[in-house]
């Protein structure tokens, strides 16, 4: 083995089981099973942050990260959709700054949809969904410009961020914006912790939509995710056990996962 170009039998079984568990617990939740979710402070803060902008009568800035259309960005847009619903009810403006031209139509459409869904289509302003630049640092400068010129009260950064993250948050902080940031990849989290008021770390990012909306589909999925994580832990525990007992070339789990050889 030793190749990861295509799946082997073990990977097929593992992948299918993980998928089945997630989909299964979604179905269970949809049938009405109650699911518990623990408190996630960074996400609880979203409501407070939107409220602050409303009180101050100033807009909110939202960045869905720098990636194109991928899973990270789609999750960011799902969070955006929730925030728009909160803000639309309170007639608070949201400015979305985009880096990928591909994400632009998707953001425009889902924000419009969110305004429709809460019955305020008249509050939607196409101008507020802005493509800034596809160049990383031109995007950063452009976003800082918007944050300062529009006197943004609240700054939401959810999505894939890279080195430019600190340029956004340090300026946002200096301008007095309340900042909530979330990024699945760990690399920029330290800088968010240093400069933002609330930070959503790692997997909490993917738990966001479930936590915020409490929709059965999403909470069910979250419970399924926990079971899957337990399976990953079990695999690691088994792998460590095997590594302790056998030499690497006899560790079949290693081979099954495409390692060794």
């Amino acid at each position, binding site marked *: 083995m030793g190749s990861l170009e295509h799946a082997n039998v073990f990977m097929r079984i593992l992948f299918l089981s993980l998928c089945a568990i997630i989909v299964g617990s979604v179905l269970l939740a949809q049938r009405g099973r109650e699911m518990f979710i623990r408190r996630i402070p960074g996400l609880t803060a979203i409501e407070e942050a939107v409220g602050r902008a409303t009180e101050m009568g100033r807009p909110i800035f939202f960045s869905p990260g720098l990636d194109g259309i991928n899973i990270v960005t789609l999750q960011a847009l799902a969070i955006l959709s929730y925030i728009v619903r909160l803000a639309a009810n309170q007639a608070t403006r949201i400015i979305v700054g985009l880096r990928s031209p591909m994400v632009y139509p998707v953001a425009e*459409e889902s924000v419009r949809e969110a305004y429709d869904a809460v019955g305020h289509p008249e509050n939607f302003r196409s101008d507020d969904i802005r493509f800034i630049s596809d160049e990383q640092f031109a995007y950063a400068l452009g976003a800082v410009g918007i944050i300062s010129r529009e006197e943004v009260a609240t700054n939401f950064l959810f999505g894939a961020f890279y080195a430019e993250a600190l340029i956004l948050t340090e300026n946002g902080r200096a301008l007095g914006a309340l900042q909530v940031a979330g990024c699945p990849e760990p690399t920029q989290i330290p800088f968010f912790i240093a400069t933002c008021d609330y930070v959503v770390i790692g997997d909490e990012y993917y738990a966001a939509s479930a936590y915020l909306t409490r929709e059965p589909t999403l909470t069910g999925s979250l419970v399924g995710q926990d079971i899957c994580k337990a399976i990953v832990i079990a695999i690691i525990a088994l792998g*460590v056990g095997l590594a302790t007992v056998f030499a690497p070339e006899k560790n079949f789990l290693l081979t099954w996962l495409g390692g060794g050889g």
Partner: protein
Amino acid sequence: MNPDLYILWAAAIATLGVYTILYRENPISRLFEHIFVGLSAGYLIVATWTLNLEGKWWNPMIHDKKWYWIFAPIVGSLFYFIYSRRLGWLARLIMGLFFGTAAGTFFRQFFPIYSPQIYACFKPLDYQAGMGIQGVIFDLLLHNWIFVIILLTVMSYFFFSIPHEGRFGRNLGRSAMLGRWFLMIAFGAMFGNTVMARISLFIGRMQFLLKDWLGSLIPWFATRGL
């Protein structure tokens, strides 16, 4: 023409212009922000054509007479229906295609990305022949134990559906707290690890401003070592 002198001055002024933002967002930084965004927009169009469309789309369609490539802009144009209320669903259709691709791409990447990370955690917790233990004070076995413990406690922090009270939950709560501590250590280490790289960027800019630019005006600056 020889553009070198213009490049030198334009670069110096642009650099200083950007640095004014350190005081606060101001008319000068705003001007350079707009120039930067404008240049990148122009460059985006040029690059999309020269690096992508010309070779992958225009030449095959016109020169190789593969006329079916005309479907690409037609399908792409569906995105533009977002501006129409009645026809908006066509834009969603093409977005659906890209959503599916995003999901499928993640399915493909799942094992290639995460498998090596998982099996790299298979560390023996007992002596293995050929391990080649180097003793300073902390030897490899202790390292492996630390590694596995940190990994598991950090993962326990990311369980959302188990309350941190009750018989099993209380233990999970403790483990999650430990996990949070390790997370903070890791974040601190990542922060510290980035400082030097960021300062090099500024040193590089200052070398340009002092040696290349000021040095061209006042030779003394060019003689200062760097």
